[in-house]
């Protein structure tokens, strides 16, 4: 069924590693309990940090009395925000993405003036034991003057409420526009029909299984900080700790990300807690460990989404889309997290064209401060929200036109010969065969027959729905220059070192950082393919800024395309240097040397050959190298892609809805993904499975909520539903392969695709099932209660 064929992805010479479903090199330590996550690491004399957090959503701090806590047995120190200020460190958690007119309020490690959301850190206790530290928390006496709060992004801006920050009286952090407003208005005026939808995309809480943690070890004698932490991007953390919070030179900070138990965005950011951990170690001269509880994760890990949107779509009667107009209020939370500004602006508005040829698009986003946990990128980040809007619009338009939703999509797909395709939302799509993937997905479910069955069942009073989610993703944010033009305070490149060791093994140092994606396996496959060596000969090292000089990290589906691209480029440089050594030692010209399966041989004389691993040894001996060549065989590569990559695909869900009880059963879930060339099909499938699970979670189960007092109502795992095994179906996955033309190995990335696809697919399916009830949209999470109400159960 699959036409996936990843062979020939690389111009390396044939170890066959690229494209193979090999087992993961990272598994055995994780399966036997020997893999070390941050909390598993202990240093001699480790102390424990607990953080006192605000119980109020919005309040002025009047006083903090730490004396009782300080007097407790085992307590070493209690610090407040004033102590951090007095220490003279820069104490600034910076945003990493500027926007025109952006209001950037002060964001300190520990609050000094006000608390702006429940969970704001106000004091830190360091004690000899974990229990002693947490016991002391309740003996810190904080007096507050409570202030009126606001948790909804529309209320924050529209209602007369006190500002979260004085600098933004109307709570507007930014007012962002993308696209051509006039052209869009014209398109709407000329079009035959307009359909619209009002929707909310609720807050999601990432829930990586390992809560955040840090272990800091300050060495006074050398002025060096070692910080183990749950990080998706240790180098970015090193930079932000240096320039933002602690003020140490970057070369005096070592950030280590050991095993990291999931991230999904939540471990990208520079939070107060890890900086406080490091700062406490600097004050006390002892190692300090902080391990978040799950309750702290709910209150402090950046949430995702929180959009309130009105979307409109203009079409002609034949189904041709003429324009899309979107207005969104995006909740940013109480502080600007690093990419909290980029996610609801550029990462969102730019994908509103989806897979479709849409001549005119306009989007306005008002970014609002609210008294809530900061919001930033969560798996799908911006792209998930944007694709959800366009896919809901296409579905409601199909209903309006009484046209089959698959057919309406088909009529508007960007055709294969239009690539590179410049959308009206300012992106240039690299490549795509959208109809091929859609056809494959529809074929899997036997779409026409399924529609027939749907009609028959409706006559029997049963309601099945067929949902379609067609998506693109912009992955691997780049090039750096473009990112800079748009406001990014960081580059879009990735860096790696590919090194032959003197006895022929290969070490790859990569600037990305794994949290379960399997980089150690896939990167080894990339390098092995390029170098013609066995995967077993390649060791990949990530997650230590002292071992890997530079890197940007893992987020935005960038590791395979940007990190893998860098490794392939570096490996090719290594191979070419080896080729020159081979030519020299075989006494022929470089042009006469062929490379095949690790062997350099003289063209036409296959028995005159040298293996690349032999050459590695020669390169380090240095006895017989071409004149002027330096010894050694390694390359440092910085790869700054010329464009994003654009994964795409179509997912189809079949659900049955029981209107009387509101129950929704997923009968089938088919995912056809095109992530370009596939390095390891097993790992790609795993990413798709996990992505679907999080998308279904958003569609049916998850969603954070605040109560009237501004307290997070979903603050435990039994209140915020992370789907469990009986709540998810089996997924049927398939792939098409459309290589990215500009990526060195043709890959596009797959980390977020399925999350982006799954939420609109499921909502589409439920809405389709409920067509006989006149329901064309239900907000996520679609619960039995919301189905029951929508079908008139409460009448």
């Amino acid at each position, binding site marked *: 069924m699959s036409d996936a064929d990843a062979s020939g992805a690389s111009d390396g010479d044939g170890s066959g590693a690229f494209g193979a479903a090999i087992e993961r090199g990272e598994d055995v*330590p994780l*399966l036997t309990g020997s893999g070390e996550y941050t909390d598993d690491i202990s240093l001699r004399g480790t102390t424990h940090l607990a953080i006192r957090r605000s119980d109020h959503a919005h309040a002025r701090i009047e006083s903090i009395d730490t004396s009782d806590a300080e007097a407790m047995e085992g307590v070493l120190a209690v610090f407040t925000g004033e102590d951090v200020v007095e220490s003279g460190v820069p104490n600034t958690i910076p945003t990493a993405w500027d926007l025109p007119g952006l209001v950037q309020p002060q964001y300190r490690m520990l609050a000094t003036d006000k608390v702006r959301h429940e969970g704001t850190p106000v004091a830190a206790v360091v004690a000899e034991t974990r229990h002693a530290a947490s016991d002391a928390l309740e003996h810190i006496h904080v007096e507050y003057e409570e202030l009126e709060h606001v948790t909804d992004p529309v209320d924050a801006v529209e209602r007369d409420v006190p500002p979260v920050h004085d600098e933004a009286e109307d709570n507007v952090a930014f007012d962002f526009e993308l696209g051509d407003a006039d052209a869009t208005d014209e398109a709407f005026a000329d079009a035959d029909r307009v359909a619209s939808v009002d929707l909310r995309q609720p807050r999601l809480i990432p829930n990586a299984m*390992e809560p955040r943690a840090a272990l800091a070890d300050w060495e006074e004698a050398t002025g060096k900080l070692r910080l183990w932490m749950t990080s998706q991007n240790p180098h970015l953390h090193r930079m932000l700790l240096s320039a933002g919070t602690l003020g140490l030179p970057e070369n005096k900070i070592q950030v280590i990300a050991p095993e990291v138990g999931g991230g999904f965005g939540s471990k990208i950011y520079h939070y107060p807690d890890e900086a406080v951990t490091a700062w406490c170690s600097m004050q006390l001269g002892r190692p300090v460990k902080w391990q978040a509880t799950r309750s702290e994760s709910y209150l402090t890990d950046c949430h995702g989404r929180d959009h309130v949107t009105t979307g409109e779509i203009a079409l002609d009667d034949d189904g041709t889309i003429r324009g899309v107009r979107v207005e969104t209020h995006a909740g940013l939370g109480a502080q600007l997290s690093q990419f909290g500004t980029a996610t609801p602006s550029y990462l969102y508005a730019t994908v509103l064209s989806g897979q479709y040829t849409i001549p005119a698009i306009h989007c306005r986003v008002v970014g609002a401060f609210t008294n809530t946990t900061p919001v930033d990128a969560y798996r799908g980040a911006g792209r998930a929200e944007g694709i959800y809007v366009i896919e809901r619009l296409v579905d409601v338009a199909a209903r309006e036109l009484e046209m089959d939703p698959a057919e309406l999509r088909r009529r508007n797909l960007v055709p294969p010969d239009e690539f590179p395709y410049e959308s009206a939302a300012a992106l240039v799509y690299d490549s795509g065969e959208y109809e091929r993937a859609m056809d494959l997905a529809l074929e899997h479910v036997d779409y026409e027959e399924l529609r027939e069955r749907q009609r028959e069942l409706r006559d029997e009073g049963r309601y099945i729905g067929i949902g379609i989610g067609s998506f693109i993703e912009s992955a691997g944010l780049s090039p750096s220059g473009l990112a800079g033009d748009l406001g990014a305070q960081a580059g879009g490149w990735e860096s790696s070192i590919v090194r032959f060791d003197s006895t022929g093994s290969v070490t790859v140092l990569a600037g990305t950082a794994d949290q379960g994606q399997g980089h150690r396996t896939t990167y080894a496959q990339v390098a092995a393919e390029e170098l013609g060596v066995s995967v077993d000969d390649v060791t990949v090292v990530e997650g230590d800024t002292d071992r890997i000089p530079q890197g940007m990290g893992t987020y935005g589906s960038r590791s395979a395309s940007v990190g893998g691209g860098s490794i392939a480029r570096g490996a090719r440089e290594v191979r070419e240097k080896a080729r020159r050594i081979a030519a020299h030692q075989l006494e022929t010209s470089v042009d006469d040397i062929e490379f095949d399966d690790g062997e350099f041989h003289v063209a036409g004389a296959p028995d005159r050959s040298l293996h690349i691993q032999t050459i590695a040894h020669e390169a380090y001996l240095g006895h017989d190298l071409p004149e002027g060549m330096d010894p050694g065989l390694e390359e440092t590569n910085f790869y700054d892609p010329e464009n994003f990559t654009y994964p795409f695909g179509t997912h189809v869900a079949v659900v049955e809805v029981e209107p009387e009880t509101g129950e929704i059963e997923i009968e089938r879930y088919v995912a056809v993904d095109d992530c370009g060339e596939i390095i390891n099909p097993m790992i790609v499938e795993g990413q798709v499975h*996990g992505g679907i699970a999080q998308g279904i979670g958003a569609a049916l189960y998850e969603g954070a909520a605040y109560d009237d007092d501004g307290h997070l109502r979903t603050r435990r795992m039994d209140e915020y539903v992370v789907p469990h*095994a*009986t709540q998810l179906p089996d997924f049927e996955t398939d792939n098409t392969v459309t290589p990215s033309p500009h990526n060195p190995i043709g890959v596009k990335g797959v980390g977020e695709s399925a999350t982006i696809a799954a939420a609109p697919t499921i909502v589409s399916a439920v809405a389709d099932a409920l067509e006989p009830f006149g329901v064309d949209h239900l907000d996520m999470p679609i619960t039995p209660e919301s189905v029951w109400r929508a079908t008139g159960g409460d009448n």
Partner: protein
Amino acid sequence: MTDTREITLTVNGTEHTIEVEPRQLLVHAIREELDLTGTHIGCDTGNCGACTVLKDGEPIKSCLMFATQAAGSELATVEGMEELPEARGELHPLQEGFREEHGLQCGYCTPGMLMSGKALLDENPNPSEAEIREAISGNLCRCTGYQNIVRSIEYAAEELEEGEIAAADGGVTVDGDGSTEASASVDYDIPDGEFDCGAENCCGGPTTDRKHGGSTTDREHGGDFGGDSR
């Protein structure tokens, strides 16, 4: 000073006597006093299952019990899996299944999943998909969507069943290359002294033959997770 109690636990076949605070949770004792950090903590409400261990053969969430409540019991954690008889001195079939079927990504939930999987297969060697999903429904995974975890447990069930059949056929399987190895139920090839059930010629006790014999009664001694229900 802090009030502490002395308790004795048998963990993965080895007896330990440790000092714990009365309020110390079992999971903290396992991680901090016994330094077995393969058992993880993913929540503080007993929902996630990352801390699942076997206590006297039953899966329990070790964050929902004080260490003192486990005094005298036999615990099994992920660190002991390779030493179980059915592991044949290598990865346990469950561990192998997770690797073969890509049943783990970040690995944080995995030890708990393995323990729940082990408890299920001890009780029900041939579970349906629905039974597997039910058995692991107290263990949350955020990475895999569970499908490959289900496959992993199915893989282990098949492997274990093949081992059982081989055992019934005389306890020896012949590999493709003609070499022989003892089947899962009888091969208990761990170095002398690593485990000792106390009986002569058994489990590291005074020995006349390093390997165990083929009788199934040997399996009831110590090496299995705190009492074999099969």
